[in-house]
């Protein structure tokens, strides 16, 4: 009975989302205040019913109602209660419901905080979000109903995929979806602006904090996913250029471009059409990501769900959203007036270079990800595009971006000021070279490690140079508005990430060894002594647990316990044992037994691997921090023209309205 209530709640939510799409937009068109006023209550109503459906599905997992097919497939009696929560989004149907729930959370937040937006604009934004919700609820109800019954109910469920039984996975999908789905807000703002023809740049200021928060969440979600792959997939990689990873990375790249393009449009009125286009692309890539992950068209280490019907639906929805918004863009964007002209050596140019590199990088990732599909469609054979393709092009494209990065904050809007460039360049490059020499003295050898150290120092020193300059020049109390602090955090994050990515790649020592009890493997400066394998038991698994004593120069460092877990249905899952550290991780995982107590053991030394995630988290902090700036708070009453907040940089003439 209760699951049917969930189904009913979903159907009601579908109806409400349809109304939420149609009524406010018609109201804005007909200038009907009563119709526009429905938006808010429809948003709340839709949220309530989706949340109810989600709560009912969670309840079904908690009480182990195996008459619900989805529960029976993704849980069983032995599953610990905390994984029953994450099992709700452990497979396709539930993760889709989570998608809609998160979309509704975003919509609710827009409805709550956007009350001071112009009335028509507000109605249109909520209407567009209603359309997206309608599409996904329809998708859920027609192709992937989480409440479908399984009669007769089995005595016990199947299981949650053991790979997913990890604390990292509890948070990974919700955070990732917060980012993915969050771009729907920037998208809705862009479409609402195009629909209304109100193409002055004010819509951009309103949408900036939303984009920043979404991008921050997406950064956190990707970090969580990378960390999960590192600790759970058992072979110690942190990024595979796998289609599913690419699916989350493409919106991130375009989102990073969007964050910067929006800043230009907000402050200078320039790049308007480009910003609109990026907002459309960022969300379209989120939808494409959902399609790639959920349709099963691509083979990936993640391929969880595969159902052609679902693929066709999402592809159709994708075509409507992307096609529709690009058509709207084509019809309206020519009315978008350009901003003020800018000199070649201005901040706009540098931001544009960054934008270009980020979007081209997203395009190359898209090409590499879709190429196998195209190849198959045109009978060119079954192709896979290897990780080196992505790595090579990505490094190449990011080089100009990294070189330009410290100088963008130092440059002036609109005007060329190369004097500051010269002063900064000698110091930044000097520091970078110095860091390289220090690394050399400390024993770093080879091109890549030195490149990692100098590139990272270059970015961090450049950002610090700007922070110091600002400290000296700006009056106390106005030195670091949150928007700027966010920029500083994120740019330092880029530097930290570069160090982590390049150093981990070039300095890692990875060895697969055959060890008998008592034998020792020497990896990097460490001795890994294998003590043998015993048995241990968890809530729903049995494991063979190895003991490896790690020592350095004879003094003990840590004892690691890698496991090989066996779950009730016989699935085997490797659990690596990791000794984390700021400068290096020691990583041990078990392979197969080789007889006579000997085992295949994977022994890794991973220097600086945590810097990768620390960099990503700094970028997340940057996104959140910038979004909290009070510049973005709406102050004017509805209906009035856009507020011109005090410029963060001194002496900007008030913007001419387009």
């Amino acid at each position, binding site marked *: 009975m209760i699951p049917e209530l969930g189904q009913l709640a979903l159907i009601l939510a579908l109806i409400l989302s349809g109304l939420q799409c149609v009524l406010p937009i018609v109201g804005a068109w007909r200038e009907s205040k009563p119709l526009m006023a429905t938006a808010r209550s429809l948003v709340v109503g839709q949220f309530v019913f989706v949340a109810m459906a989600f709560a009912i599905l969670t309840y079904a997992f908690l009480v182990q109602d195996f008459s619900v097919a989805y529960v029976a497939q993704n849980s069983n009696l032995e599953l610990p209660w905390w994984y029953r929560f994450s099992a709700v989004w452990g497979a396709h149907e539930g993760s889709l419901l989570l998608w809609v729930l998160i979309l509704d959370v975003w919509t609710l937040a827009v409805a709550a905080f956007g009350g001071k937006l112009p009335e028509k604009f507000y109605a249109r934004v909520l209407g567009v979000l209603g359309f997206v919700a309608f599409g996904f609820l329809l998708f859920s109800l027609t192709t992937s109903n989480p409440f479908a019954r399984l009669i007769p109910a089995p005595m016990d469920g199947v299981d949650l*995929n053991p*790979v997913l039984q990890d604390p990292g996975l509890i948070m990974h999908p919700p955070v990732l979806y917060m980012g993915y789905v969050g771009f729907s807000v920037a998208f809705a703002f862009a479409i609402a602006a195009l629909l209304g023809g109100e193409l002055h740049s004010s819509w951009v200021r309103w949408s900036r904090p939303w984009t920043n928060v979404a991008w921050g969440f997406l950064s956190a979600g990707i970090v969580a996913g990378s960390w999960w792959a590192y600790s759970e997939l*058992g*072979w110690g990689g942190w990024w595979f250029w796998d289609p599913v990873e690419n699916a989350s990375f493409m919106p991130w790249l375009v989102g990073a471009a969007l964050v910067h393009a929006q800043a230009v449009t907000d402050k200078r009125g320039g790049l308007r059409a480009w910003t609109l286009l990026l907002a459309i692309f960022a969300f379209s890539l989120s939808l494409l990501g959902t399609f790639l992950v959920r349709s*099963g068209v691509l*083979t990936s*280490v*993640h*391929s*969880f769900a*595969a159902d052609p019907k679902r693929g066709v639906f999402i592809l159709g929805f994708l075509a409507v959203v992307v096609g529709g918004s690009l058509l709207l863009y084509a019809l309206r964007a020519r009315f978008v007036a350009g901003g003020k002209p800018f000199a070649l050596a201005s901040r706009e140019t540098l931001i544009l270079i960054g934008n270009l590199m980020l979007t*081209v990088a997203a395009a*190359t990732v898209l*090409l*590499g990800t879709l*190429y196998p599909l195209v190849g198959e469609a045109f009978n060119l*054979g*079954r*192709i*896979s*595009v*290897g*990780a*080196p*393709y992505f790595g*090579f*092009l990505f490094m*190449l494209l990011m080089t100009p971006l990294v070189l330009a990065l410290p100088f963008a904050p130092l440059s002036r809007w609109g005007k060329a000021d190369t004097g500051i460039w010269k002063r900064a360049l000698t110091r930044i490059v000097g520091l970078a070279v110095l860091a390289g020499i220090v690394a050399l003295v400390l024993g770093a050898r080879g091109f890549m490690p030195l490149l990692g150290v100098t590139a990272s120092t270059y970015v961090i020193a450049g950002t610090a140079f700007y922070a110091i300059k600002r400290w000296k020049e700006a009056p106390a109390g106005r030195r670091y508005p949150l928007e700027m602090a966010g920029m500083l955090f994120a740019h330092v994050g880029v530097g930290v990430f570069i160090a982590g990515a390049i150093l981990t790649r070039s300095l890692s020592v990875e060895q*697969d*060894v*055959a060890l008998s009890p008592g034998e020792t493997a020497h990896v990097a400066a460490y001795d890994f002594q294998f003590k043998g394998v015993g048995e241990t038991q968890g809530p729903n698994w049995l494991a063979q647990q190895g003991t490896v004593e790690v020592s350095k120069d004879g003094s003990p460092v840590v004892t690691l316990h890698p496991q090989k877990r066996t779950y009730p249905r016989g*699935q*085997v*899952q*490797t659990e690596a044992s990791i000794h984390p550290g700021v400068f290096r991780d020691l990583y041990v*995982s078990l*392979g*197969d037994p*080789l*007889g006579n107590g*000997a085992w*295949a053991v*994977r022994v890794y030394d991973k220097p600086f691997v945590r810097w990768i995630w620390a960099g990503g988290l700094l970028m997340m902090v940057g996104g959140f921090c910038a979004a909290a700036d009070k510049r973005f708070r709406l102050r004017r009453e509805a209906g009035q023209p856009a507020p011109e907040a005090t410029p963060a940089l001194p002496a900007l003439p008030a913007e001419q309205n387009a």
Partner: protein
Amino acid sequence: MNPIRKRRLIVISLIVLAVGCAAALTVFALQQNMTYLYSPTEVKAGKAPMNSAFRLGGVVKEGSVHRVAGTLTTDFTITDRFQDMPVQYTGILPDLFREGQSVITTGHMSGGGFTATQVLAKHDETYMPKEVADAIAKAKAAHKVPATAQGGGEQ
């Protein structure tokens, strides 16, 4: 030509040059890193490159896996149920590697066998990678065998 036109011409030619470079680099990188997947039947028919890396997909033949004692080297046979291909791999096999399961290996031919540098098995043990399913279907078609389901593996 007036100065504005001249400047536009310069800008446009620079853009064309940049796009050209980018496209050339992308195509180059793509060609360097594209690997094709073949089934044992296709390899036996000489379709796979003999001197460069490719992917070999199929099912791990039942009873074919055995380890070389005291080392990490494993010998096994990949089959598409029509042709077999001996494979040698040194390293740790994925958790889902089992006899009767479908795998995708990357490597190259050496002697009469395939030396794998990477072995991938899928997360979900009931799921057969689309490529492998296709390869088996293709091998079937080549042998003009009436298409029957290949066990519960195909999606």
